[in-house]
């Protein structure tokens, strides 16, 4: 079996995916680690953990594609590609009917128009503003003193979502505090926060434009409240599953298998000076 890897070093989290080709291509394993300050180490840790989960030796991986903002820091990678190409490819692999990808990550949100083979036709991204990204949600969670994984489910319980007028990641804190002071329930505040981000994201996405077959990827795809808010604003269902968080790394791994070609090159893995943890 030919084995390849994709490593997506994002601003907040690093994702790694191992794929194998034996007749067809399938995902063998995946890993998620915090990026932190040492980007290189995060990439190595993610890669090694994904290898362990896949039951493959790091030395047997024939080709590695790096993606995400830290892609040029992956010392053992063969080549780099942008996460835009990788998310499109990964989303198409997970849901072949994908024609639009909405990717919400830690500091980026983007919409990608995808062709029938997973190729990028067009894309738009947020610019110099973290509103509409995971960071906005993280700030809201912090102000409310609620864990990031809990805010989505809690927002689903909102009966009277508040109106969040600011789309600024910094100023949303004062908006939230003001609503809490008025006695609003945390779930209603969170309902409002999720809707505000959904509206902003959809207005960004409408520029590509949005074709049916919408797949959500990126870290925020794990947030059930966000998925529902987006579906409400879009008026349609989203395609999303537990692998969607890894779509960038998965796409990178699929490109890696493709670029590896017929020549199997073992021993790509070369640990750097940074000692991996664990």
């Amino acid at each position, binding site marked *: 079996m030919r084995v390849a890897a994709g490593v997506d070093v994002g601003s907040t989290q690093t994702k790694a995916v191992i794929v194998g080709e034996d007749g067809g291509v399938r995902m063998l394993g995946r890993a998620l680690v915090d990026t932190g300050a040492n980007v290189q180490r995060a990439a190595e840790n993610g890669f090694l953990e994904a290898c362990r989960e896949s039951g493959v030796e790091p030395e047997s991986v024939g080709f590695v594609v790096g993606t995400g903002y830290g892609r040029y820091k992956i010392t053992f990678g063969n080549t780099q590609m942008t996460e*835009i190409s990788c998310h499109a490819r990964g989303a198409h692999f997970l849901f072949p009917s994908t024609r639009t990808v909405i990717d919400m990550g830690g500091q980026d949100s983007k919409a990608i128009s995808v062709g029938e083979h997973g190729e*990028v036709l*067009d894309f738009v991204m947020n610019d110099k503003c973290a509103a509409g990204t995971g960071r906005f949600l993280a700030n809201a969670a912090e102000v409310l003193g609620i864990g990031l994984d809990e805010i989505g489910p809690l927002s689903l319980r909102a009966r009277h979502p508040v109106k969040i007028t600011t789309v600024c990641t910094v100023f949303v804190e004062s908006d939230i505090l003001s609503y809490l002071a008025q006695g609003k329930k945390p779930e209603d505040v969170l309902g409002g926060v999720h809707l505000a981000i959904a509206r902003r994201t959809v207005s960004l996405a409408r520029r590509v434009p949005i074709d049916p077959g919408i797949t959500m990827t990126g870290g925020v795809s794990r947030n059930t409240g966000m998925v529902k808010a987006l579906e409400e604003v879009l008026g349609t269902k989203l395609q999303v599953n537990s692998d969607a968080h890894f779509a960038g790394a998965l796409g990178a791994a699929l490109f890696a298998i493709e670029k590896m070609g017929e020549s199997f090159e073992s021993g790509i893995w070369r640990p750097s000076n940074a000692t991996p943890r664990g």
Partner: protein
Amino acid sequence: MGETQASEYRSDIHRQQRDLMLRWYQRLEESAHGGPPAVSLMISGNCVELLEAFGAVPLYPEVNALQLAIRHQSLDPILAAEEMGYAADNCAYVKADIGAMIKGITPAGTELPVPKLVLCNFVGCNTYVKWFEHAAEFQNAPLAMLDVPFLRTAEPRAEDVAYIVCQLKEIVKQLEELTGRRFDYDRFREAMRCSARVEEAWSRIKHLARRTPTPFDAYFDAITLMGPLYVYRGSPEGVAFFELALRELEEKAARGEGIYDQERFRVVMEGPPPYPFFRTFRDMFAAWKATAVASTYSTVGGLWEFGFRHDPDHPFESLAMHMLAHNVTNRNYLQRYDQIRRYIEEWDADGVVIHFVKSCRLFSAGQGDMRGYFTQQLGVPTLYVESDLEDPRYFSEAQIKNRMDAFFEALEHARSTGTLHRGAAAIRHAPGGEIAPAAADRLKILQ
């Protein structure tokens, strides 16, 4: 992508360009000490030929501002202007110029004169009205404001031409009084003759970029030639420079030399460059061996590649025509769509790259729609990136590089699958083979 850099064309053109621009600053310094009179002008649709008739030197605030930016000296004057009260979203050219004026900073370290006249040849950009008012106020210099009607129709009306001619003749009288020099009509016509020759050479240089590979980059290399184009257009020095540049580039084209060992992508550029990160931005194209075959920015001072020339037999009228219709800033947005489309078709481009300038609302505000027009109506791959032409604080290298790489990755993939089309073939045909009509045809509804 790797570390490919453009094999920039370096020869007599670049040496002479530096000499000419240095000499310009020296003449301005002489002007400050009783030499030739200086007159402030704006680049867009400038009437530099009028100044030649007085032996006056043009003083272009934009050139000073961009020279500061490209030398990484624009932030201090911008901050100085903001301390004075200019808002964060005011045009950064204005802030750099006013801030530099107040702090006494000059790009070449040479002294700048107080102009005999601050002449706002208002063409397209209404921010300039305030800019030149402030410049006149801070320098205690007289101000004249030309009123150039915006081009809403395909061709200017005869009344508009007569209106401009009338104003230009008033400026002539005003300049005679302010400079104490007589308007030399023969010299004026001679300047028009020089301009026509420069424009012919410049136009032929631009048409060289229709070749594959293009011998010069019509955005990054064109900017090198734009300084002399505005300062020396109506002079024999300008003629000598542009005819030399044409010869050199024709020889380069005849040898089949391009910018890279192998040209991979051909794009049309819209919007001014991020001058504070000019090199960094260029390298992002070089990494993909992508060249600009045409650019709208290089037509701000004048649009000559489609045939317009100054006419020595009708000097005032042709100045008026130039200001009204033959520069990109005074033309309407739909005409700009068609200008870009023509570049795609006739200059054989693969796509369009739009550089949005954060502090320029006037020319950047419609670029989101422009992107939509090219991607969705014409089916031409179009990238949109944002920063600023003068303010370094708006340039986010990682974000811009990410978008550039994604754009060219998509083009490369499309090429590998045979779905990337170039030139006229890149324009989507409607079902039945009918090609989309020109955008400016919609203007007929308005007329």
